[in-house]
């Protein structure tokens, strides 16, 4: 076993050292290079729940995919062939998930997604061993679309990077908005300067803006937008307004509405325990990714209470029952094994010195996914 695993799962391993672990979970996530913050939060959320459970018969093996698909595939092969894991989880990015999940599930392993949930895996490519605990990729964009409609916006300007997730995002928004657009723009993936797009927004006569620009792209856009003198309501999916990223955006993000299926002010006992536990252990507020990691771990733990992964049928049924206290409150799986859940609109606020979010509306209740009918598991 690698050093890193020892560091990350120190307490578990200490307990597991004596007794042979009965269940092995492989976590592949991004821990180095650009985008590492998302993987680190996923891991920390997951491990928080695992450690709280204190089960010495579960071993978690954590590896860094460097955000490279080929590395992720290689790690998955290693975990399946050498470590003989039963369950895989942790991938942040859709393109890495597409590289790993189909082959892993085809080999009879379970995969629980803590974030990435591309359309393919929710529809035509759905698989009995694949569960998305987070959402389906389009969900948060759909929420923004629904919100735009309910607010009575008539000319939103929508924008995303030119790659599959970006195209899905704009389609998701349009699916629930359904009206006329002031403009639809695809930016370059990794673009850092948005002066040209802001000028287009200004000239388009838009009454609102929806954008999906993950990571540094969103930070750049918001800073530049805040200084542009254009003052339209801004909407987006939660990714660009997440805990880790908000502090880097600062004042510029204030008041932005974002679609999310989780927020730290969601009023339920599980969430309160999660937020305070996370803050206590890691000294920072949890992010969306941490919440998905935490829920995934708890789902797993709940299923392990009633079944063993070696009995795939029973374990699948146990997972599908989703008999755990989600930090999102109500949570159940649809036939394609993606969640049915409420999706909210959050607003960026400032609490003391820290920027964070609060829920202002419920955008869509009991949302499943657009691709559920394409899945053959009906």
């Amino acid at each position: 076993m690698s050093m890193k695993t020892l560091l990350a799962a120190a307490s578990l391993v200490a307990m597991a050292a004596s007794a042979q672990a009965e269940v092995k979970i492989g976590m592949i996530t991004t821990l180095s290079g650009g985008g590492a913050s998302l993987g680190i939060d996923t891991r920390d959320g997951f491990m928080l729940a695992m450690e709280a459970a204190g089960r010495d018969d579960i071993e978690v093996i954590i590896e860094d995919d460097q955000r490279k698909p080929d590395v992720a595939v290689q790690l998955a092969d290693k975990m399946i062939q050498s470590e003989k894991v039963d369950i895989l989880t942790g991938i942040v990015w859709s393109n890495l998930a597409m590289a790993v999940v189909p082959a892993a599930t085809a080999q009879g392993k379970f995969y629980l997604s803590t974030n990435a949930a591309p359309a393919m895996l929710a529809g035509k490519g759905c698989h009995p061993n694949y569960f998305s605990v987070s959402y389906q990729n389009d969900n948060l964009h759909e929420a923004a679309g629904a919100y735009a409609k309910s607010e009575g916006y008539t000319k939103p300007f929508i924008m995303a990077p030119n790659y599959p997730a970006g195209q899905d995002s704009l389609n998701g928004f349009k699916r629930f908005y359904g009206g006329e657009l002031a403009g639809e723009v695809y930016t370059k993936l990794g673009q850092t300067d948005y002066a040209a797009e802001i000028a287009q927004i200004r000239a388009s006569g838009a009454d609102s803006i929806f954008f999906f620009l993950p990571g540094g792209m969103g930070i750049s856009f918001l800073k530049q937008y805040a200084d542009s003198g254009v003052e339209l309501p801004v909407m987006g999916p939660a990714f660009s307004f997440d805990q880790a990223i908000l502090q880097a955006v600062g004042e510029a993000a204030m008041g932005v509405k974002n679609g999310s299926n989780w927020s730290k002010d969601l009023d339920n006992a599980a969430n309160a325990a999660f937020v305070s536990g996370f803050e206590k252990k890691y000294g920072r507020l949890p992010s969306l990714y941490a919440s998905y990691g935490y829920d995934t771990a708890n789902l797993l733990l709940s299923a392990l209470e009633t079944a063993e992964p070696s009995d795939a049928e029973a374990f699948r049924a146990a997972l599908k029952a989703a008999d755990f206290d989600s930090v999102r409150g109500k949570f159940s799986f649809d036939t394609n094994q993606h969640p049915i859940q409420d999706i909210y609109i959050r607003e960026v606020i400032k609490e003391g010195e820290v920027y964070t979010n609060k829920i202002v509306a419920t955008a869509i209740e009991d949302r499943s996914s657009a691709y559920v009918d394409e899945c053959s598991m009906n």
Partner: protein
Amino acid sequence: MSRERLLNGALLLALILIPAWALYAGEPFTITLATRAVIFALAAVGLNIALGLGGLVSLGHAVFFGIGGYAMGILASHAQSYTPLMDWPFAIEGTKSMPVIWLVAIVASSCAALLIGLLSLRTSGVYFIMITLAFGQMMYFFAISWPAYGGEDGLSIYVRNGFPGLNTLDPIQFYGLCLALLCLVLAFNARLMRSPFGLALNAARQVPERVRAVGLDPRRLQLVALVISGAITGLAGALFADLNRFVSPTMLSWQMSGEIMVFVIIGGVARLFGPVAGAGIYVLLEHLLGGVSEYWQIFLGLVLLMVVLFGKGGVVGMIAGRRRDD
């Protein structure tokens, strides 16, 4: 027997014995790692022909690697979904047969190399480095935003492609196949280095004005070298995609080009087995350092820096001494 030959023999023996060791030690994953190293070595052998023999510092070899990968991805995905690649003017079906995929990968990447070479070889030195980088970026951005074959998400193939008479899903058999191809290409490379073409190319790198003065066109020699080089790297790309059962634009990124170059440099430029040693060491470092620290790339950087600054001739050079032709 020279030390370099002994070293080459030892490397080859090690590659052959890896599966046996992996089975004995109960580490079947080692075979996958070794397959990765062998495929990287193949890509680097390709680059070494352009770089070591031809003196063409190409920072765009990921183009050929990626084209090979997409040749596999596109053909296999069509075969997987039973949709023809095109209907008009004549029907082309997808395929899951490795030999056909390899052929397509080789032809496609050599065509790309010919085109890129025709344009890039008008320049030299730093300009050549940069224009090959630019072609790489062009292909990369194209692949990311081209939706037909998955864009940035890439293409997943559920089952590895087949080779007549072999079970390619068995790691050892697939490894054997890759190793056999590597040996074949190394044998070709060894002959190439001593052939009349190799002689002329070698001189074109060192003294192009001399080559011109004896009536040969160094640029044409280099163009042919680039095409051969691109074809081999393209073949490696098809194998790499098959190893991962997946292809994505990452294979076309400039970091990939940089890594292929790193394999050649760590191992030893213009040494027959340099790329093999380099790719092996890189994969090993990545595997071992990755387990030591999240910040393992710092150490990788340091190792690389040391090799470049103090290890003239790469690992093969350090062990076997200066290059000798017989």
